[in-house]
């Protein structure tokens, strides 16, 4: 494979290694990271195609690690002069005396590739793609309007990203990877009989070649149907009273976002390094009900959170975090792994070259159980079945988490009732999953997901099967 990034820099891998060693001479670990990302995006709203947008952003960053100190020099513009300038700037920053570390890896350095090395975009000015994309968006717009007469506006956007990255590590390892992602978002606005407007949206964002999405009519039809259904449900939704006495069934797939917030973030090892996480010093202890198994797995085929190597150049792996309710693992980057004497789990990620890596989730999920959804719902006297969530958030120190439930139905005496509007779910991570009553067998991984932390956003997925929580595990915020 010819390297796009080495070609741009105009150096061989050996030369780059020499330059990296020079820049990191006063360190004990670190890397020179480069990336080039090409994005094309086009959108429609009110039947009008908004201006098509394209961008190439390319650059690099040199990071020098000494114990808990990471000096960092980042630059836009992928060329050798900028790389050499970064090396010069780094050597002028006074260094802390570092203690060498022996990094242990979870994943296999030579593991299989999850992406082909094929670029999703043939050429940077791929007008053929854009012509097709504009046609697709117009089709989505007219299909959405004809699908339901109450639709007053359809918004849709298609974004294609082609990203190449290269890591030359201090320890000599050299890694290159490519990360193509296609994302299609559909949003519909429905006007009810009384004039109220409700929105519904659905999106898909997967690593794949762009032409697959453009030609998969069934896939985008499904997005429109789901968005319309959500908006329609919201039009008939009723208000409920909040309280702590609801049993909650969190739906499969996207419902895993509860897990992501309640557990995921608090198991990122940088928080543990500073002693501030809610699950601090709890390895080996019970943190969830028996039967709860939680994984973070960066190696799931075709999943949005998967990649071959993390942004420190370490291989990804399938990491068991909670086994039968017992906390058994954390997600680490190199610095937290070294500080906590743990393995590097391949979770050191960054949004762009100009961001510092930190422990981040990939595909985070709870393994399925054996019940059916009916089994779970039929036993519930007073509850909520929540299948779609708006943004969630967690305070990793107290463990407090919060979600907006955008699709939820009342459960009354074992039967599903009306849709609910404006409800939220809140709870404490340490408590909620200690009260799991049942897990169904219909496991699903989400097709979309972006996770934010310290201003950096990275693609992830979440997953689970339908999960029933006892009353009191979470509280419901109502609007009545």
């Amino acid at each position: 494979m010819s390297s796009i990034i080495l070609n741009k820099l105009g150096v061989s891998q050996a030369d780059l290694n020499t330059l990296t060693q020079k820049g990191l001479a006063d360190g004990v670990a670190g890397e020179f990271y480069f990336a080039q990302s090409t994005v094309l995006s086009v959108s429609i709203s009110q039947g009008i195609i908004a201006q098509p947008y394209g961008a190439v952003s390319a650059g690099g960053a040199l990071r020098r690690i000494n114990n808990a100190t990471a000096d960092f020099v980042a630059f836009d513009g992928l060329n050798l002069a900028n790389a050499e300038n970064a090396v010069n700037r780094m050597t002028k920053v006074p260094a802390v005396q570092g203690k060498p570390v022996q990094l242990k890896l979870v994943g296999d350095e030579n593991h299989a590739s999850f992406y082909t090395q094929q670029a999703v975009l043939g050429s940077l000015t791929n007008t053929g793609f854009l012509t097709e994309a504009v046609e697709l968006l117009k089709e989505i717009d007219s299909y959405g309007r004809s699908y339901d007469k109450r639709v007053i506006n359809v918004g849709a956007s298609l974004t294609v990203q082609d990203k190449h990255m290269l890591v030359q590590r201090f320890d000599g390892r050299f890694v290159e990877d490519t990360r193509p992602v296609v994302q299609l978002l559909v949003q519909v606005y429905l006007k009810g009989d009384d004039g109220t407007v409700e929105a519904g949206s659905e999106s898909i964002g997967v690593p794949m070649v762009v032409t697959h999405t453009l030609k998969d009519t069934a896939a985008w039809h499904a997005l429109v149907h789901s968005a319309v259904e959500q908006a329609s449900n919201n039009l008939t939704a009723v208000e409920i009273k909040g309280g702590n006495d609801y049993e909650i069934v969190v739906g499969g797939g996207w419902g895993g976002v509860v897990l992501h917030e309640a557990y995921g973030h608090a198991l990122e090892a940088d928080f543990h390094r500073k002693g501030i996480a809610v699950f601090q010093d709890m390895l080996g202890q019970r943190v969830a009900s028996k039967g709860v198994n939680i994984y973070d797995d960066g190696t799931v085929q075709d999943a949005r959170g998967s990649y071959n190597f993390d942004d420190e150049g370490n291989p990804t792996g399938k990491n068991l975090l909670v086994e039968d309710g017992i906390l058994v693992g954390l997600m680490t980057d190199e610095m937290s792994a070294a500080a906590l004497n743990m393995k590097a789990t391949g979770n050191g990620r960054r949004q762009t070259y100009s961001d510092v890596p930190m422990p981040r989730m990939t595909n985070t999920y709870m393994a399925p159980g054996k019940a059916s959804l009916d089994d779970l719902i039929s036993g519930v006297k007073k509850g909520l079945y929540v299948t779609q969530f708006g943004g969630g958030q967690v305070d990793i120190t107290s463990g407090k988490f919060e979600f907006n439930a955008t699709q939820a139905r009342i459960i009354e005496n074992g039967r599903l009732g009306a849709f609910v509007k404006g409800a939220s779910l809140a709870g404490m991570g340490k408590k909620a999953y200690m009260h799991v009553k049942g897990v169904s067998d219909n496991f699903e991984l989400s097709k979309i997901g972006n996770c934010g932390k310290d201003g950096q956003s990275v693609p992830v997925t979440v997953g689970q099967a339908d999960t029933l929580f006892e009353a009191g595990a979470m509280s419901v915020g109502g609007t009545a």
Partner: protein
Amino acid sequence: MKKYHDICQKAVQQALKLGATDAQCNINLSSDKSLSVYKGESEGLEQRNELGATVTCYIGQKVGTFSVSDLSEASVDMAVNSALAFAQISPENPYEGLLDKNEVQNPTTADVQALDLLDNTNMTPDELYQGALAVEQAVYSHNGIISTRGCGLSQSRSTSIGYASNGVSYQDTASVFSASVEAIAADSKNKVTDYYHDSKRHLSDLEDLADIGHQAALKTVAKLNIVKMPFSGKLPVVLSPEIAGSLLLSKLAGCISGDAVFNQGSFVKKESLGQKLFGDNIQLVDNRTMVRGLGSSAMSGSGIIGPEQVAFVEDGVLQNLTYNVVTGRKLGLCPKHGRPKMYNAHFKPGKQTVVDLVSNVQKGLYVTDVMGHGFKPSRGDMSFTIGGYVIENGIITDDYVLEATLSGNLIEMLNNTTFAQDLKFKYGSNSPTALVEGVSIS
């Protein structure tokens, strides 16, 4: 600076030569450095040089945009060619197009300088380290503090340069200095966190660094006294200035954005202009030219100087929406009078002190924290997880509620809000403390 201006001009001329009827090029440059300290040690000096050039090409009312992250001739050429190729195949958009040549106004150098947004101080790594250390030492001087997520000091300087075929030409440079800390406190039962930061255009205006540490520590330690929510129902809440800014001001700003209105995603319609939507005492004002203001700008948009001050809500009556040239055309609003966003917005203060305002509340919550994304612009409904101190018999007590929920409706809330007199211009947009009646808390 001339070098960048020349690159912009050359790109625009190249685009016109290749068949564009109009073109625009913007360059943004920034350099920043930051350093944080953890338990006395530097966590590292971070330095960034960022650069971007964006070219927009028009062929009549067809438009395409492309950005690149370096200014080599090959990259700028690629941006021009790609933007033009995009414009060629994109459908006609009846609202697109640059402002008419005769309407273009550019800010003068004096306009830019009058805002006083640039401080050329260049902090050394050691100055950054010593500053961050001063913040940290203040934090740890308080009992109960067990850790921080790092105490950081940063400085950044950014320049934007623009040139377009309709005569738009501008450049400005601004700086920001910031200090921030997230502190963690714990006792035998609880572990809590809170945050404090300050940002200023000039280093000399930054709050005292030790004070920043003390503020963060005091806010955090106070939260350890956790109680269960003692009541629920339709009760008054008093929102701290930060929370009033995020729950009232920024949510309202989102709903009066011209794009949201045009897309019918907001409860505000174009017809709402001139209508009384909120209480008599609601005044939302935006000042674009505040000296050293965090959001200040010498112009309202590309080629538009526009008014210095705009009242968006006056005595509860909606007077304006935010919109750029294109959105203005979509909504039939005069592009020259519009601004694409709020620059330094604030709610005008009321007459009472915070103590007086709270004294009216027999039972309620003083809200200091909010979490979640539970806001629906199409209805104004909101549902958030909140934290705050119990108010009893007109006094804010020491009892902190970590987890409560607030639900209400923005329109109703802004019909039942009383502001205190304590408006301060600390952030880009600011609100006084607000008493809001008629929301549900549990």
